[in-house]
């Protein structure tokens, strides 16, 4: 049977138990369509279900042996075929109750016998055209949707790239490679994804926070080289200037209109300003304490301390990971929320892997 359905030319399926009726319809349509025939409802249904994708229209008689037209229609309706291929009921007596049921089952049009060739042709052609236009439109919309999605992805990537570039350029001044910001991003993302700290945040929000973490130190652009890269301990005055990088960073972000409109802005602002606050209220610049410090600022704060400890800096050598964890746990390098600390210690082994990449 498949052989008679080769190719993808437009096809009209004619289902009628009477050969003369079938041939008459075939004669009307064969100039513009290939035709398929079936001589009862059951045969017609089988052919339709096997090859619905090749059919442009179905012409269906009502009174037939084996399975009548309405039964065929019920089967087609149950499978949603009539939404893809228009079905025309061709009947010698369009009785009200049959017509009503046919329409409710999704028949597109009811055409009376004896058929008038140009009327049948015209009515079928118009609906076929409508279905094809609809299909084309739907395909186009799908194409456009995936195009728009791809564009949006590229814009997001570009945004992230710009943010990374800016942050890396600033870190570069203090002798850091791009690795520091990437690690802060990865640690933040990891902790949000894998610990209870991320509870209540959507996937998008977690991604935005991770992007925002990259910008935690942008305020360092306002700190003079001599202080930023001083190998020894800073004087109290120098430290006061160093501390301003939090406020300056938040201000800088606020002044970039594109950044202010970015979904990550509120997190970036918070993180830049508050990543040096301490849980006991003895941090800077605002002396926030406990729950006053947003969880994202706390996470970045801890990630920043951890990364600073295990990395070599102008003013210090690198500590071993175990030493670093011990220093954080015993409160030698800041005071953190016990819940945050617990989450960190629970996943610290996994975070080490970020450093091995």
């Amino acid at each position, binding site marked *: 049977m498949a052989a008679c359905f080769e190719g993808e030319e437009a096809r009209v399926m004619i289902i009628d138990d*009477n*050969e003369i009726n079938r041939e008459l319809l075939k*004669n*009307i349509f064969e100039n513009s369509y290939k035709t398929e025939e079936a001589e009862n409802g059951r045969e017609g249904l089988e052919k339709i279900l096997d090859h619905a994708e090749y059919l442009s229209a179905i012409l269906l008689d009502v*009174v037939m042996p084996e399975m009548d037209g309405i039964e065929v229609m019920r089967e087609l309706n149950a499978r949603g075929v009539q939404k893809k291929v228009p079905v025309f009921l061709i009947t*010698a*007596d369009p009785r009200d109750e049959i017509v009503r049921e046919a329409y409710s089952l999704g028949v597109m049009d009811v055409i009376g*016998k*004896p058929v008038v*060739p140009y009327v049948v042709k015209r009515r079928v052609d118009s609906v076929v055209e409508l279905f094809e236009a609809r299909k084309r439109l739907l395909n186009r919309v799908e194409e456009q949707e995936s195009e728009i999605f791809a564009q949006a992805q590229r814009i997001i990537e570009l945004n992230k790239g710009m943010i990374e570039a800016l942050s890396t350029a600033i870190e570069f001044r203090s002798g850091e490679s791009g690795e520091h910001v990437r690690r802060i991003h990865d640690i933040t993302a990891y902790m949000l994804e894998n610990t209870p700290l991320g509870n209540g945040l959507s996937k998008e929000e977690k991604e935005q926070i991770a992007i925002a973490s990259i910008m935690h130190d942008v305020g360092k652009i306002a700190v003079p080289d001599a202080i930023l890269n001083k190998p020894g301990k800073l004087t109290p005055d120098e430290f006061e200037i160093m501390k301003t990088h939090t406020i300056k960073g938040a201000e800088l972000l606020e002044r970039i209109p594109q950044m202010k409109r970015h979904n990550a802005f509120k997190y970036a602002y918070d993180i830049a300003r508050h990543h040096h606050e301490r849980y006991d209220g003895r941090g800077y610049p605002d002396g926030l304490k406990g729950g006053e410090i947003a969880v994202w600022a706390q996470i970045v704060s801890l990630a920043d301390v951890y990364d600073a400890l295990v990395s070599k800096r102008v003013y210090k050598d690198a500590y071993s990971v175990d030493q670093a964890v011990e220093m954080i746990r015993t409160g030698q390098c800041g005071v953190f929320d016990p819940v945050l600390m617990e989450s960190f210690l629970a996943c610290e082994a996994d975070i080490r892997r970020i450093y091995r990449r």
Partner: protein
Amino acid sequence: MTDEIKKDLALAGIDVNGGIDRCMGNEGLYERFLKKFLNDGNWEGFMKAMDGKDYKTAESCIHSLKGVCGNLSMDSLYASASEITGFLRASEYEKAEMLAKKAGAEYKAVCDAIKRWF
């Protein structure tokens, strides 16, 4: 098809020009259909079912006959078959039987005329 044939078929209640129109001007196809009509078993099926008082089958047969002769522009037979279908559907069997006699004569006239020429 000559006018003589058309006239003769018209006497049997067949609108030849209407039938040819329905075949989109294809006269040969219409002639083929007329010949094929002689093999249509619906009239016999109808009569047999009426004799056996199997009105459901009779209705189905006469309904099919109605469809075909409508498509072939056999106007008088089409009209009678339509009426009989209506009576049977309304369970008015006597009226159907009475009309069946007239339809039988029309059916015979149609078949005879076709046989005469083709």
